[in-house]
């Protein structure tokens, strides 16, 4: 039996090489995409955790301020050290500084050498040969990568700068245990505090508990006892938060992988269905010879599996290759900007690999299921006499009735799903709604083909066209399969194009609103040098207007990444001049601190304009008034804008990190030159709004490039499905066509009939695909994106892209049917009529 199964599989593959190879490739594509995303993310996370562990050690608890301007008071250190469960408390100050004229910011970690020796041994320094005095005696210790990259020498003098603070010191040694690629400086915590603050405290506490104590319980107890501005966390929370950051992005890529797998399943379906149809007499004969009925089912499933097994194996290989290639080119976040620009090492993973392998095989089995069932129920005697029966005899009417009911239920479920909230930040209901829209589109295919071809049948048509129409009406299965392939692939393409275009249009308009000034200057994560700020205000500086901003962060929920705090020189009476508000703005009440929150923050925490909100600010809990909600496509985890006046009133220090600059009229060129010199002198970034805009849009385009490639693949697969099914349906009618040619139709007329049929089917598929695609695009923009990224945008259907794609598809579909027609009419009529097998 296995010998026979193997013979049949081999014969099937040999006679349908292209179809088989393409189905395999589609399955491989889905598997590889899923596996690659998984590998890359795992490697990036592992990389991140490793780096985290090396600078943080493995404490049982970390106590941190909730906002970037807060600190851990010194008194708390003694209090915690006095707790009898505590073995060790390590105070740490982490800050970012600039080293002399080196144009990048470097992380500086201040540690207490005795506690660090036990908790964070990788941070322990090695004294350079040339230095004198005790370890940590007012010197800097640099990681080997930093020394190499910046060409620094142990023993050389160094100037450490942050905002207005300077520290003249020297490089006293290196950090031998630090992994390659890690650029950081270590110094004694007292020196760091003396020069860069915080004055009355430290940046964070890392706590190691006595052996046998219960860390979680301990953290819970202390969470209640801590002063309001502080959070207590487990070390592992950091990795979890990072994983959260990239999750939405990953989920979307995974959906693309799923789509690829589903199109693979569809290709297997189309290939196997036509294969079953073409071989119906062969299977009937085998049945007559005594092939057990269940083997007619299994054989088709085997063939599906024979596509899935090598396809999935190839997919794993490709996925591994892709993961390695992508991380080389784009880094661990595929250009998403979530992880530092490191290149993680990709290692193949057995269990997830097996999972994706099974998924690939499952998809191809799924595709083979219906054809296998159809093959199983073919009536043997009849199949031998007249060939493939598209419909199981005597089942038509109840099935159609049931289908109508099912369609109604599906249609009713969609609005319901759309209104459901995200589960754990994942828009699962939205994805289900998308799947249902596609199901609905496919299920509408029979109705639509009947409508289109029924209307045609009533029209007065030339004979060849009449034959084509009649054929589809009599035997609609192949037409429906061909149409469904196009429906799905065109719907996916239209939806993706729509989603991307909506997003891009919205981003474009948003950039206009948030970049009012011609020039911007910023210094990533540390205050701008005081020298520069002074220079820019001198009367000879070519600027008419300057707006300053300070950035910080605050944590509203310890399980989520922190939100950005933007302190801006903004007019409290007219914030709309600078922020693109999504709704009404409420005037700031006199004497109350007012903030304007971004859409993401509003969605995550369910905020309203006009309500009061408690924010951790400057180590305190401050009640603020929400004056409005503004759109922000830049900070996915939310942002809070506050005026400098309000921030100063709270007692905050306004340390400028960003500048918006308007040159004096007429001195645009002078301004450009001025900025270029100053930026180079202080090693900071300066950009024109046009550049920022161009770069932003190009990053956007780059991160969606993958989707364009997948759209192209989907369209090819859809077209191929059309070609395969048309060719098969023509092939099945070879005898009929030969009869017609014996009756006096010439080849050209027959070919025209087939092309006409293909065009009509393609039109039906494209129309339904367009409708489904716009619906899916709307769900993506209005449901999935807001739930996954908390970004809203208006729907924008790019007809200038959709229509050309539709026309090209139609043309390609007609070409495919022409090819099918040629194949069929090339057979000598006499041979076909003689029934030669």
């Amino acid at each position, binding site marked *: 039996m296995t010998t026979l199964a193997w013979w049949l599989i081999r*014969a099937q593959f040999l006679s349908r090489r292209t179809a088989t190879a393409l189905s395999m490739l589609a399955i491989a594509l889905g598997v590889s995409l899923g596996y690659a995303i998984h590998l890359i993310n795992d490697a990036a996370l592992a990389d991140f955790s490793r780096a985290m562990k090396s600078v943080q050690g493995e404490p049982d608890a970390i106590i941190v301020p909730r906002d970037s301007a807060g600190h851990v008071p010194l008194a708390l250190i003694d209090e915690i050290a006095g707790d009898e469960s505590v073995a060790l408390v390590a105070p740490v100050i982490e800050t970012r500084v600039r080293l002399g004229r080196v144009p990048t910011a470097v992380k500086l970690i201040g540690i207490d050498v005795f506690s660090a020796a036990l908790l964070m041994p990788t941070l322990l320094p090695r004294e350079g040969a040339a230095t004198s005095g005790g370890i940590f005696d007012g010197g800097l210790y640099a990681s080997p990568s930093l020394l190499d990259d910046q060409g620094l020498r142990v023993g050389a003098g160094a100037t450490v700068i942050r905002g207005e603070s300077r520290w003249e010191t020297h490089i006293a040694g290196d950090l031998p245990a630090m992994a390659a690629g890690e650029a950081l400086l270590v110094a004694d915590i007292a020196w760091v505090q003396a020069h860069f603050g915080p004055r009355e405290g430290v940046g964070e506490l890392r706590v190691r508990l006595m052996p046998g104590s219960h860390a979680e319980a301990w953290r819970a107890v202390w969470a209640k006892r801590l002063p309001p501005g502080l959070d207590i966390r487990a070390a592992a929370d950091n990795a979890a938060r990072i994983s959260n950051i990239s999750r939405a992005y990953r989920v979307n890529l995974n959906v693309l992988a799923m789509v690829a797998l589903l199109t693979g399943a569809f290709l297997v379906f189309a290939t196997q269905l036509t294969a079953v149809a073409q071989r119906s007499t062969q299977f009937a004969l085998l049945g007559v*010879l005594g092939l057990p009925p269940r083997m007619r089912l299994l054989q088709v499933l085997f063939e599906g599996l024979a596509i899935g097994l090598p396809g999935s194996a190839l997919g794993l290989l490709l996925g591994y290759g892709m993961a390695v290639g992508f991380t080389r080119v784009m880094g661990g976040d595929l250009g998403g900007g979530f992880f530092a620009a490191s290149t993680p090492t990709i290692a193949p993973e057995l269990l997830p690999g097996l999972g994706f392998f099974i998924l690939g095989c499952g998809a191809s089995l799924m595709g083979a299921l219906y054809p296998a069932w159809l093959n199983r129920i073919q009536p043997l005697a009849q199949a*031998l006499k007249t060939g493939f029966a598209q419909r199981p005899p005597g089942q038509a009417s109840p099935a159609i009735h049931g289908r109508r009911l099912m369609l109604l239920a599906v249609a009713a479920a969609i609005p319901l799903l759309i209104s459901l909230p995200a589960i754990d930040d994942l828009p699962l209901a939205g994805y289900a709604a998308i799947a249902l829209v596609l199901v609905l589109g496919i299920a509408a295919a029979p109705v639509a083909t009947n409508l289109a071809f029924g209307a045609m049948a009533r029209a007065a048509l030339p004979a060849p066209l009449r034959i084509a129409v009649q054929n589809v009406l009599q035997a609609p299965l192949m037409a429906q399969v061909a149409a469904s392939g196009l429906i799905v692939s065109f719907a996916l393409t239209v939806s993706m194009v729509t989603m991307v275009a909506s997003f891009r249009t919205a981003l474009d308009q948003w950039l206009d609103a948030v970049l009012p000034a011609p020039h911007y200057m910023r210094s990533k994560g540390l205050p701008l040098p005081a020298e520069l700020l002074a220079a820019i205000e001198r009367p000879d500086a070519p600027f008419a207007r300057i707006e300053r901003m300070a950035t910080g962060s605050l944590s509203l929920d310890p399980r989520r990444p922190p939100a950005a705090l933007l302190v801006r020189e903004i007019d409290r009476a007219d914030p709309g001049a600078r922020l693109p508000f999504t709704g009404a703005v409420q005037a700031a009440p006199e004497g109350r601190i007012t903030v304007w929150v971004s859409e993401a923050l509003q969605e995550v925490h369910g905020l309203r304009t006009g309500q009061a909100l408690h924010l951790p600010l400057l180590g305190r809990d401050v009640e603020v008034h929400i004056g409005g909600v503004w759109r922000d496509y830049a900070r996915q985890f939310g942002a809070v804008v506050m005026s400098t006046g309000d921030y100063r009133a709270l007692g905050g220090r306004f340390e400028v990190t960003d500048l918006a600059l308007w040159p004096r009229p007429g001195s645009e060129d002078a301004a450009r030159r001025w900025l270029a010199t100053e930026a180079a002198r202080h090693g900071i970034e300066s950009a024109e709004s046009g550049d920022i805009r161009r770069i932003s849009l190009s990053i956007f385009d780059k991160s969606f490039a993958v989707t364009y490639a997948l759209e192209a693949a989907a369209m090819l697969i859809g077209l191929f499905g059309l070609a395969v099914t048309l060719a098969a349906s023509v092939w099945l009618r070879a005898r009929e066509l030969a009869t017609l040619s014996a009756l006096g139709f010439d080849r050209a007329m027959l070919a025209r009939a087939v092309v006409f049929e293909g065009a009509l089917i393609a039109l039906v598929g494209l129309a339904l695909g367009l409708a489904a695609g716009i619906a899916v695009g709307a769900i993506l923009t209005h449901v999935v994106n807001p739930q996954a990224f908390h970004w809203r945008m208006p729907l924008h259907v790019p007809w200038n892209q959709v229509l050309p794609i539709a026309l090209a598809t139609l043309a390609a579909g007609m070409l495919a049917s022409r090819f099918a027609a040629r194949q069929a009419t090339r057979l000598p009529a006499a041979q076909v009529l003689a029934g030669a*097998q």
Partner: protein
Amino acid sequence: MLSIVGLSKRHPGALRPLFSELRFAIGTGEVVALVGESGVGKSTLLNCIAGLELADAGEIRVGPDALDMLRLDETARAALRATRIGFVFQAFHVLPTLTVAQNIAIPLLLSGVTPAEHPARIESLLLRVGLAGFGPRWPATLSGGELQRVAIARALVHRPALILADEPTGNLDPRTADEVLTVLLERVRDQHAGALIVTHSQHVAQCCDRILTLTPDGLE
């Protein structure tokens, strides 16, 4: 080899039964011709005997221990065909994607004959139907008469108790038809199988041991 008692069949939706209360038997080594007007139900009768279609009532017993086809489920009917029945069609039905030898090997695979025996059995049958050396060839390169001889070899290779043939020479010219029929009759007789051959040819019918005529009123 075959005994039929009280067999009736009416197609769904048909006004009157095609045949009812049929009764006949075929003995070991006996070759019976079945003739009758077109549309009278000859092919249907053959299909019922092979278990491809289900009769409405009656008994169909095949083989030495006389298993009743009507009492078996679909899988068991397939197994019965695989072991006890050989089928020959008017339209040859040789699988184009398998070689001649592979086509003939199908019944051996289905009836579970040990693979070691296959080559010898196939070769000797090919020799006896006059196709020595044709094993590795593809069906597309064979003539109609040769294809039908492949089909005959395939129907006999697993030594079935009963051969059913539906107009086996209908697609062949008279001379080739004669050759093919001779081969078929010789092989059936030297394997001591029973055979039921549907035919429109007077000549073919004459070559058989017995002639049954199916009419709307029954067998004559």
